[in-house]
């Protein structure tokens, strides 16, 4: 199934088709596709991509929740024009349920905002991480897609978040520093048991096509030295309309759905959908829920 963008002319047919497919769903327990958006370093455009993918998926009829996992420096709420009353911090502290914290945005997807400006959140203990995973598991039972906007860089916490995912989308750009950090993240993921498949988006591409060349170099090094295959999702051009965006503006897919950058985002979404079974929720396999998946990937024994 191809995901198509919703416009004023074709949204009816897209939605009819999607709702038709939904009617044929099995009533057996389902679990959402969990897609983690990651970057080896800050400033690559990870949150821009995450928010726009969430908006695009929602426009295509998916029930999407974007979870801002950039603990301590979350800004997805700013990009989606939400002023949250409670955040993941309250969920982790047991002061609110994740359902209470999840809020609607004006652009389609729901958002679970991260705490902002609270460095402690970037240093969650394992117990707190497990509380977070249990909360996300509840969300996964109700949504089609969970998008995890993870913290930039490589830390145990961000790695744990990536290990929850069915698929990792790694955002990089053609700069050598960004490529080096992206490669380190790929290498690190590869060394975990049963790592999730990883795809690459190259952002801020000055010359059309250079994204694929950047990917090719990264892919070659990953195959040669880390023994792993990564996949190419697409490139996003360097675009002043993106870099000069201000807080309070709607996501690009809403404000400029016809611009070249938006077309690239739709192409990325389409590729991602092909790689992830149409981004439909999947049958819930016993022992493969989020928490079990994390334990398996960390080779942890179940407790209590």
């Amino acid at each position, binding site marked *: 199934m191809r995901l198509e963008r919703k416009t004023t002319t074709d949204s009816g047919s897209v939605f009819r088709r999607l709702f038709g497919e939904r009617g044929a769903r099995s009533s057996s327990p389902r679990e959402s596709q969990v897609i983690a958006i990651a970057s080896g370093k800050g400033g690559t455009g990870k949150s821009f991509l995450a928010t726009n993918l969430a908006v695009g998926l929602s426009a295509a009829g998916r029930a999407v929740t974007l979870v801002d996992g950039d603990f301590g420096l979350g800004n997805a709420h*700013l990009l989606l024009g939400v*002023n949250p*009353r*409670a955040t993941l*911090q*309250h969920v982790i*502290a*047991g*002061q*609110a*349920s994740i359902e*209470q914290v999840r809020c609607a945005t004006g652009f389609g997807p729901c958002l679970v905002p991260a*705490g902002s*400006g*609270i*460095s*402690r959140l970037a*240093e*969650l*203990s*394992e*117990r707190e*991480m*497990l509380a977070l995973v249990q909360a996300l598991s509840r969300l996964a039972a109700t949504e089609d897609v969970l998008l995890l906007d993870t913290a930039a860089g*490589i*830390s*145990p*916490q961000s*790695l*744990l978040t990536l290990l929850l995912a069915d698929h990792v989308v790694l955002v990089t750009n053609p700069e*050598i520093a960004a*490529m*080096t950090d992206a*490669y*380190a*993240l790929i*290498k*690190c993921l590869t*060394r*975990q048991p049963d790592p999730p498949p990883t795809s690459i988006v190259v952002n801020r591409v000055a010359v059309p096509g250079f994204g694929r060349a950047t990917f090719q*170099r*990264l892919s*070659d*090094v990953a195959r*040669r*030295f880390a023994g792993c295959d990564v996949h190419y999702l697409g490139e996003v051009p360097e675009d002043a309309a993106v870099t000069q965006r201000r*807080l*309070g503006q709607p996501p690009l897919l809403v404000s400029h759905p016809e611009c070249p950058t938006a077309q690239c985002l739709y192409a990325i979404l389409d590729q991602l959908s092909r790689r992830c079974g149409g981004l439909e929720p999947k049958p819930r396999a016993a022992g493969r829920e989020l928490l079990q998946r994390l334990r398996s990937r*960390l080779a*942890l024994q179940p*407790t209590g």
Partner: protein
Amino acid sequence: MISGPQLPRTRAGLLELLAHHLGEMERGLEVVALGLELDPSCTVDVLAKDAAGGPVLAFAVDQDSEAELPSTVLATRAWLATGRAALARACPAEGLDWERDPRLVALALDLQCGTLQVLAELPKGAVEVYRVLPFRVGGQVVVSIQSLLGEGAMQAENTLRVPTGVTNPEARSLGSRYLDLVGRLDPEIRVEGDRYFRVLRYGGQTLAELGLRDGHLQVKVPADEGVAEMELQTRQDCTVAVDRTARRFLECEAPTPGQTGSSAMEPLQRSIEDAQRLSDDEVVSLGASIDDDG
């Protein structure tokens, strides 16, 4: 059962909530007076004193008053520049030290990003901003306080340092020595605090509290017979307090793997450190150049 956030629907409800829970924003904060009209354009909702006796002027911010908050802060600062002595005479509360610079504090249930950005551009220290979220837990109102702007926000990141509200150099030196020595006991010791207060925990248990009392730093350590209280006035006091805290540390159970990040995080951390060490071949293959020093 937990429910919330439960936001008061009226301004009177908001004021009542803030007055009752002001002490949860910062240890030692006490309400002195409510509704202080400095002039027709400048009303302070709560006058309080902090642990050092310094005056704290608090504003309760709701949707209606949010837009005026930056101008209210500036107007109050301007008023205090000339009217502070008069205010001191008008409010001679016990223990309120008007020699200290009054602090302005805004307490909001919700705040637009734009308002926060404007407040951030005011002179440094002009106002501290906190978000207050009330929840109902087991029939009781529990308030979550989040520092958004000002010293509280910064202190959350520097808790192993002496609270900045402690200004006496000698007290700061002793407090610093105490925290430094206790911090060396174990990297798993966690420290939280605010402007005047620190609490040290190990494996979820309280090791000690460090706070200001009557101008001196005081250490409280839980003990069998209650709480052992020690003032830090000399280096010998500091040694005794560290010794007592170390004994308490030995009594505490070490954190279990489920309580800290040690079990799963350590292998991950090692894996990360290993992955980040790239060979020359890897670096060159990615397109970087290697200088003569490698």
